[in-house]
């Protein structure tokens, strides 16, 4: 029961909130997928994930400003971010200690570094870019749906479907899955773990970057935009069970819709708190997440 949802609030307003919630939810989902892909293979919670989103959005904006066409900027930005992901993997693999705490701190340091880098290479201003498909919109169920929202939904669904087939059908995807289930067994079967890990980091950076580019026309971007996005993506991943990329998609959508409904009907000021209240509720009442296949162990 949503508070304040009475008959004087027309249904099309509700549809509007749902649609905008689903749009943003897909972005959270993309960030959340990134968390699960890296966590699955390495056990590391990568706190630079939000900065990957920022890097994708900011690079596209500045490549566009440099006069490159949209498609080229988009692909270049994803490549740049993937390389940043690989750099993070290299730093982790060359570090002397592999305890989880120090590696998590390493990713926090990397996030600060990327923010600093964005300040220097780009600037501290807010940037936006035109929608990929023009600023048009059409009416649906009595509410407006912008073309950009449709692009976000379609691209996200395509990515999720591709990812599903990648893990299911391709050899690399199977190797990545095997490595996430049991590293030692996978290594014994001749899987190159280092390569798998590197692909995981690149993949998760690339997905985050795509999220960043998709989001920029709606919300605009700056060097700090990754902090909140990263944390909300993290919440999405935990809601889905942290080890399941497709759980993160559901987590992201749930978060996006809840956030939009709360902002619309209850309080827009507390919109940002929704993700963390849900996060706590999940931790308290179903610590394995909605779809966690590995149950959180009780001591």
């Amino acid at each position, binding site marked *: 029961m949503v508070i304040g949802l009475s008959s004087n609030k027309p249904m099309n307003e509700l549809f509007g909130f749902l649609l905008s919630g689903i749009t943003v939810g897909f972005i959270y989902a993309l960030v959340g997928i990134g968390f699960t892909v890296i966590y699955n293979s390495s056990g590391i919670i990568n706190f630079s994930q939000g900065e990957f989103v920022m890097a994708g959005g900011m690079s596209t904006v500045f490549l566009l400003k440099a006069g490159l066409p949209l498609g080229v900027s988009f692909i270049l930005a994803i490549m740049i971010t993937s390389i940043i992901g690989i750099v993070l993997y290299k730093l982790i693999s060359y*570090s002397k200690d592999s305890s989880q705490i120090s590696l998590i701190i390493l990713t926090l340091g*990397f996030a600060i570094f990327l923010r600093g880098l964005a300040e220097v290479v780009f600037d501290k201003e807010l940037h936006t870019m035109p929608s990929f498909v023009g600023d048009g919109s059409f009416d649906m169920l009595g509410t407006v749906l912008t073309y950009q929202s449709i692009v976000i939904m379609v691209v996200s669904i395509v990515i999720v479907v591709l990812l599903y087939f990648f893990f299911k059908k391709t050899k690399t995807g199977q190797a990545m899955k095997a490595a996430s289930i049991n590293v030692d067994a996978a290594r014994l079967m001749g899987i190159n773990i280092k390569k798998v890990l590197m692909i995981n980091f690149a993949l998760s950076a690339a997905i985050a970057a795509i999220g960043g580019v998709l989001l920029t026309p709606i919300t605009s971007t700056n060097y700090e935009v990754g902090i909140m996005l990263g944390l909300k993506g993290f919440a999405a991943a935990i809601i889905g069970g942290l080890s399941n990329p497709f759980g993160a998609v559901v987590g992201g959508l749930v978060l996006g819709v809840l956030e939009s409904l709360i902002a619309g009907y209850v309080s827009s000021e507390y919109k940002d708190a929704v993700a963390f209240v849900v996060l706590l509720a999940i*931790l308290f009442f179903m610590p394995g997440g909605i779809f966690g296949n590995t149950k959180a162990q009780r*001591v």
Partner: protein
Amino acid sequence: MLKRYNISQDIIVLAILLFIAPFFFQNDFIYEIAIVSLLNALICVGLNMLMGYAGQVSLGHGAFAGLGGYIAVILSSNYGISPLFSIFIAIVTMAIFAFIISKPILKLRGHYLAMATLGVGIIISIVLNVEDELTGGSDGMSVDSFSVFGYEFTDSLQWYILCAVLLIFTIWMFKNLINSPFGRVLKSIEGSQKAANSVGINVSHYKSVVFVISVVIATLAGSLYAFFSGFISPSEASFSHSIELVVMVVLGGLGRVYGAIIGAVILTILPQLLTSFEDYQTLIYGAIIIFVMMFMPKGIASLFDDIKRRLFAQNK
């Protein structure tokens, strides 16, 4: 007498160092950095106990310190309660709060406390920003001066002495606690929860106690910081402040009594030194954290071990 109260040599060395230091402080600005370093060190000693000895990471201690500070400040400024009693109420409130959130979470294994404290911390910082009638919102609020039984703290030196004494006292308690049966229980939990459980230790209870102690220390330091600076804003309770505290502990050396202090002092001073680099400040700050975590994962305190080992190796 030293034996009886368990005062070890290193505490005396620390006390002497803290006593000598003010003779080199030329102005109020340096005093301010020193006092903030001491208060950060205080939080880090408690956080280190949680992270280094109970093996649990908290990503919300900045928020706990900030919320504790706000409770104390609001009580004393808006309700006219004396600063000391306000801090006391803040500590009791935060202790109960910490106990309640820790109970269900610490039964789970893994980094669940980290995730829960992250969530709680961000909610705290959002609430402090939104409830502006009570907290002044993002602009923050000014704080009355600090006094204990009519004795006013106005001078930097007074504050410095107060913080130094508190830090020494906390470390003394910390060391006694670590070497007590309680501390041995903690070490066994860090080693193996299952083994600890099998000899009848209620693991989650002990972890809760450590968490509560660390939150109490954070509340104390957070409220003192508010009274010292005469101002409090939600940025004290921000996620980045919580991260900063964790980085201090790990950078200094996890599970090392003095590591937390080294980390706190270095990371409090570092941003001041980096201000001359202006735009490159954040970049360099991040690079230093990456560098230390890659090449000195045991923290800066481990450097002193190496030096010690080399010195004593020659003697033998």
